[in-house]
């Protein structure tokens, strides 16, 4: 298991390098020069050249990449061009907010989604199944920024239960978590339902019935356990999906976080900050797949056997 883990982590290195090249390159194709934003209109070309040199923007691309990557690995994410502060500071400020939001939304989606999928599968093709699947479909088809705004309108403005925006209190987390979570819930509920139905049709389940176990015990202890394997796999693969939801929802609820930072720096053409945000999201996605693989190995002895 340990050797597998080490190998699995080492496999992330080339992926990380590939992602970093892509992120580095993409940002250089973005039109709009940050230097222009900093210079006063009508500044002499010498001032511009001096500015380019100061941020290393005058050197060839591969050199810029090498310098950038070298610093990134040491935790130096550069200086934000607009905010004129170390990017790492901005990230360190934003990250906890996004992690809390994303983590809670993931937890919510998993718990509620598995619960709903379980109830739907146990009542296959009867009304609870149809009601849950209908609701889940509806939940997954609303744009998350819109759902967030409507929830804000109803619960914050009309009912006054939660703060409208910001991140000052724990209750300010409720609506954002719900907004992201409902989309994730739909995904999890669907996978759980299908996986349960698929698992319930397997041979060994017939034998469990023939052993005289109660149907509920069979469903909960055996069928659900099997259904959770694909749920975990897909959830881990789509962890970025949750983070993507967080980007929009942070903006809607005016919460500090990676999403807000990303959107803001994108509009200000602040390369170093955008690069850092994307790197963080990429790392989160990679860690997600890693955790997914590990969980899968813990849940399924066949996967463990395949590793050795």
């Amino acid at each position, binding site marked *: 298991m340990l050797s597998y883990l080490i190998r699995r982590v080492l496999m992330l290195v080339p992926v990380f390098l590939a992602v970093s090249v892509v992120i580095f390159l993409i940002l250089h194709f973005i039109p709009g020069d940050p230097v222009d934003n900093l210079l006063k209109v009508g500044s002499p070309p010498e001032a511009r050249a001096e500015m380019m040199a100061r941020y290393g923007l005058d050197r060839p691309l591969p050199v810029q990449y090498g310098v950038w990557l070298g610093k990134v690995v040491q935790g130096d994410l550069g200086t934000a061009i607009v905010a004129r502060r170390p990017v790492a500071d901005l990230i360190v400020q934003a990250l906890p907010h996004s992690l809390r939001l994303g983590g809670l939304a993931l937890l919510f989606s998993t718990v509620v989604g598995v619960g709903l999928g379980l109830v739907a599968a146990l009542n296959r093709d009867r009304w609870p199944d149809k009601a849950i699947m209908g609701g889940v479909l509806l939940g997954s088809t609303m744009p998350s920024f819109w759902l967030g705004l409507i929830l804000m309108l109803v619960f914050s403005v009309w009912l006054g239960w939660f703060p409208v925006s910001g991140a000052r209190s724990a209750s300010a987390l409720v609506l954002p978590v719900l907004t992201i979570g409902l989309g994730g819930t739909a995904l999890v509920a669907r996978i759980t339902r299908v996986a349960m139905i698929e698992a319930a049709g*397997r*041979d*060994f389940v*017939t*034998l*469990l*019935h*023939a*052993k*005289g*176990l*109660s149907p509920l015990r069979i469903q909960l202890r*055996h069928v659900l*356990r*099997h259904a959770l*394997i694909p749920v975990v796999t897909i959830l881990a693969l789509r962890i970025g999906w949750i983070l993507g939801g967080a980007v929009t929802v942070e903006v809607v609820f005016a919460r500090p976080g990676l999403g807000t930072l990303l959107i803001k720096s994108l509009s200000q053409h602040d390369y170093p900050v955008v690069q850092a945000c994307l790197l963080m999201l990429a790392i989160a996605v990679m860690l997600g797949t890693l955790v997914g693989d590990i969980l899968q190995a813990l*849940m*399924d*002895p*066949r996967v463990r*056997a395949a590793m050795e």
Partner: protein
Amino acid sequence: MTALLEVSGVSVAIGALPLLDGISLSVRRGQILGLVGESGSGKSLTAMAAMGLLPLIGGRVTAGAVRFDGQDLAGMTEGQRRALRGRRIGFVTQNPMTALDPVQRVGDQVDVVSRLHLGLSKSAARARTIDLMAQLRIPEAGAVAEAWPHQLSGGMKQRIVIAMALAGDPDLIIADEPTTALDVTVQAQIIQILGSLVRDRGVALLLITHDMGVVAQICDRVAVLYAGRLAEEGPVGPIFAAPAHPYTAALIGCIPQDGMAKGSLHGIPGAVPSARAFPPGCRFHPRCARATPECTRDVPPLLPRGVGSAACFHMTPEAG
């Protein structure tokens, strides 16, 4: 002595589709009944009906009754039926490769039966499991109990499944093609194990198979199923000496003889009709050399013939 399992005139349908038509058979303690037929003839469905597990596959008994130890299954509560399964009726499935839960250690899967039905403690159940596994000639039973299903061979898994069927100390074992998925050498071992269970423990065995060779080897009685109907039923000796039904004769003809090349196995031409397209009259008539216009029109009744019974308008005369 009365029959332990008695299936009388049972018809089964899945949804609106009738699949079994008036099946009757019975097994006593210490006896082995072979239930034979090609795939699609309704053998597994009969087994599911005998265990009261038809709802699992969306099926139901539309006529007749299944009685276990004199009690009608239909008259029991689901809880009572569940108390029979695993405790008094042990089940051995067709494919040991898929019969075990892949994410549970095999020992735990056997333990649960005696813990549930015999109320044994965790350690007592494990001791019983290891004892049973040893009786089934599983080497290093203690270690095997800790193994995952994927670590075991097919024959070993089938022994585990049999141990599971035995763990509740049952009176009846239903084995649904227990050797089909296994190597020839392992097949013989498993058949031998099943035969010795009946001899040593006095259990009743309903052995479902498509192999008349296995029937000849260990069964006391045989019931031949074709397209959801009983073709012939009776003691093995007389039936093998002179099968009354042409289908039985054809199945016996399929047994590979010693010294016969593998390719020369003469199967029966054609295939079992699908339940959606059962032919009228005798369902075997499209594949039958003896078929007459009568066979295409009327359903042959199951009539006594010697010590058994058969359903054919053109029965072969009894031997002797």
